C-alpha cells in the first residue's frame, strides 16, 4: 500500500507531495471491448503526470474515468485517501477536479470572460433567492470571483480578447481559453486532454510554458495526455505508458524512455 504522507524531490528541485489520486485496478469495458485493462497508478500533489500511448491505447478513456464521464466496471478511484463512489461528472468537478477536452468544449456563444467565469461556478455559494434579496453579499462574491478570473486571464495572456465571443477565436486561442476556464476553478487536480493537439510549434511552446508556470506558480497538480513525445519528456515528472488498454510502463521520463516494452510498443524504433 502506498504511503500517503511521503513524496519526492524532482531533478529541478521541486518538492512533490503525497498521493492525491490513486487509480486501483481500473477496468473499463464498452460492450465486449476492454478499453482499459486492470490499470493502477497514482498522481501526487504538485506533479505533472503524463499519460502517453499510441492511438486507441485508452488514454482519453482513462481521463474520462478520472473526471467521472465514464464509470469503470471494476476497480477503485481513491481521491485524497478515500474511495470515491460512482459519481456524475458535475459532482467530480465540484470535488475540485477540472478538465479540458480533446475537441475543445467551450461555451461558444459567450465571451472569453464569461467562459472563464463559468469556471468559478463551483465557488459561488450564494443561493438563488439570496442573490435577489441580499445584493451586497452576492456582489461581494461576484467581485471576488471576478478578480480570480481576471488574474487567470492575465496569467494566460488573453486580456486582449476578454470580451470577444469565443466562436470568433482561432483554434489555438480557444485551447487557451479552455485552459483558463479549467484553471479558474482553482482545481486540486487539473486534467488536460491533448492540450497541444493541432497546434503549431510556436503555440506548443506557449502552451508548454503555461503548463509549467501554472504548476510552478499555483502549485497545480496536472495530469495530461499528449502525443508529442518531446513535449511530454520535457514537461512531465512521471509518465504512464498505455498500449491496447494495458499499462506497459510507469516512471520518470528517463526510465520510460529506456523501457524496452515502451520502445517496442510506442516509439517503434529507438532513435538514439
Amino acid at each position: 500500500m502506498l504511503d500517503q504522507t511521503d513524496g519526492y524531490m524532482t531533478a529541478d528541485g521541486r518538492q512533490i507531495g503525497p498521493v492525491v489520486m490513486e487509480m486501483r485496478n481500473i477496468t473499463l469495458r464498452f460492450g465486449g471491448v476492454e478499453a482499459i485493462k486492470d490499470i493502477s497508478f497514482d498522481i501526487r500533489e504538485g506533479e505533472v503526470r503524463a499519460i502517453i500511448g499510441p492511438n486507441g491505447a485508452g488514454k482519453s478513456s482513462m481521463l474520462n474515468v478520472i473526471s467521472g464521464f465514464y464509470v469503470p466496471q471494476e476497480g477503485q478511484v481513491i481521491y485524497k485517501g478515500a474511495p470515491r463512489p460512482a459519481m456524475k461528472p458535475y459532482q467530480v468537478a465540484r470535488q475540485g477536479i477540472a478538465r479540458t477536452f480533446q475537441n475543445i468544449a467551450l461555451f461558444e456563444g459567450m465571451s472569453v470572460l464569461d467562459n472563464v467565469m463559468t469556471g468559478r461556478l463551483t465557488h459561488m455559494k450564494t443561493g438563488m433567492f439570496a442573490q435577489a434579496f441580499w445584493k451586497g453579499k452576492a456582489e461581494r462574491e461576484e467581485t471576488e470571483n471576478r478578480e480570480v478570473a481576471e488574474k487567470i486571464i492575465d496569467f494566460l495572456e488573453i486580456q486582449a480578447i476578454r470580451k470577444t465571443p469565443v466562436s470568433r477565436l482561432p483554434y489555438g486561442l480557444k485551447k487557451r481559453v479552455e485552459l483558463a476556464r479549467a484553471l479558474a476553478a482553482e482545481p486540486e487536480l487539473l486534467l488536460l486532454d491533448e492540450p497541444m493537439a493541432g497546434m503549431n510549434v510556436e503555440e506548443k511552446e506557449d502552451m508548454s510554458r503555461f503548463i509549467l508556470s501554472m504548476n510552478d506558480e499555483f502549485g497545480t497538480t496536472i495530469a495530461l495526455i499528449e502525443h508529442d513525445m518531446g513535449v511530454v519528456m520535457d514537461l512531465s515528472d512521471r509518465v504512464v505508458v498505455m498500449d491496447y488498454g494495458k499499462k506497459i510502463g510507469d516512471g520518470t521520463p528517463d526510465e520510460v524512455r529506456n523501457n524496452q516494452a515502451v520502445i517496442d510498443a510506442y516509439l517503434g524504433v529507438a532513435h538514439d
Partner: protein
Amino acid sequence: MPTDLLYGAEVLLNGLMAGVLYALVALGFVLIYKASGIFNYAQGVMALFAALTLVGIMEGQIPFSHLINATFGTNIHHFGWHVPAFAAIFLTMIVMVGFAILVQRLIFRHLVGQEPIILFMATIGLAYFLEGVGDLMWGSEIKKMAVGLPQGGSLWVEENTQWLGFGNEDFYGFFLDKLDMVATVIAIVLVLALVAFSQYTKQGRAMRAVADDHQAALSVGVSLNYIWILVWSVAGFVALVAGIIWGAKSGVQFSLSLIALKALPVLMLGGFTSIPGAIVGGLIIGVGEKLFEFSFGPMLGGATENWFAYVLALIFLVFRPQGLFGEKIIERV
C-alpha cells in the same frame, strides 16, 4: 394633427401592447428550447393548466372532485374557503415546480440524447396528457380569472390625450384597455427579471452554460438535471403569468391553450434561441398585424389578424431561416 395619424398612433400603441403579450408566450418556448433543445408543444397547455390551478385554488375547489364523487358516491366540490390571489399564485407556482420535476424525472431524463423529433413528440403527448389532467382535476367549465386585474378602457388615458386632437371634434383621445396596460407592465417586468436572472445569477450562468454545451457545463460542475428542472419551472412561471393575463382577457377555458399558436410566428421571426429575438419578434408581429388590419383590413374583408402573422413569418423564413437574432446556420464542409 390629422385624425388618421392619431388613429394610426393608437393602433400602434395597441399593437405594441399585444406584441408584449405574444413575446411573453414565446419566451416560455425559447427558455426550454435553448437549454434542452426541446420544442415544447405543451407550453400553451401549461398556461391553461396554471390558470385552471390558480382559479381552482382561489375558489377552494377540491381537485379531482368529479373522480372522487364518482368513485366513492360522495358529493363534495368545495373546501368552503377562498384563498387570496397572492397566496394562490404562490401555491400555483409550487404546483408548477412540482410539474417541472415530474416532467424531467418521468419523461425527459429517459430521453437524453434522442433526436429532436422524438423530444417534440414527447411534448405533444405531454400536452394532451396535461390537458386531460387539468380537466379531471378542476372540471371543464369556463371560469373567471378574478385576481383583481382592472378591466375596460382607461378613462384617464382618454381624457389626458384628448388635447392631441387640437380641437378636432372627431378625436376623443386614445382608447387603451386597462388590462392591456397592466399586462404590458407585468410582461416588461418579467422579461427584465428573466434577463437579469440569466445574466447575473449563478443559476442563470449555469443555465446559459447548459444551453451552450452540455459536456463543458458538466466539466464546470453544473448538474444538467437540476438546470432542466429549473428551466421547466421558469417556463411554468412564464406560463402562469401568460395564463393569468389571457385568462383575465377571455376567461379560463380550453381555448386558452391555443395562445401557443400565436407564439409560433413570433419564434420564426425572432429565432428559437434568442430572448431578445422573442421580444422584438413579438413587438413586430403585434404592431404589424394591428397596423395591417388598420390600413388594409377593410380592403381585404377584415379579420386579417388571423393570418397576417403567419404570412409574415413565412416570408421571413424564406429570407432568414434562423430568425432575426437566431444563431446563424453555417455548414462547414
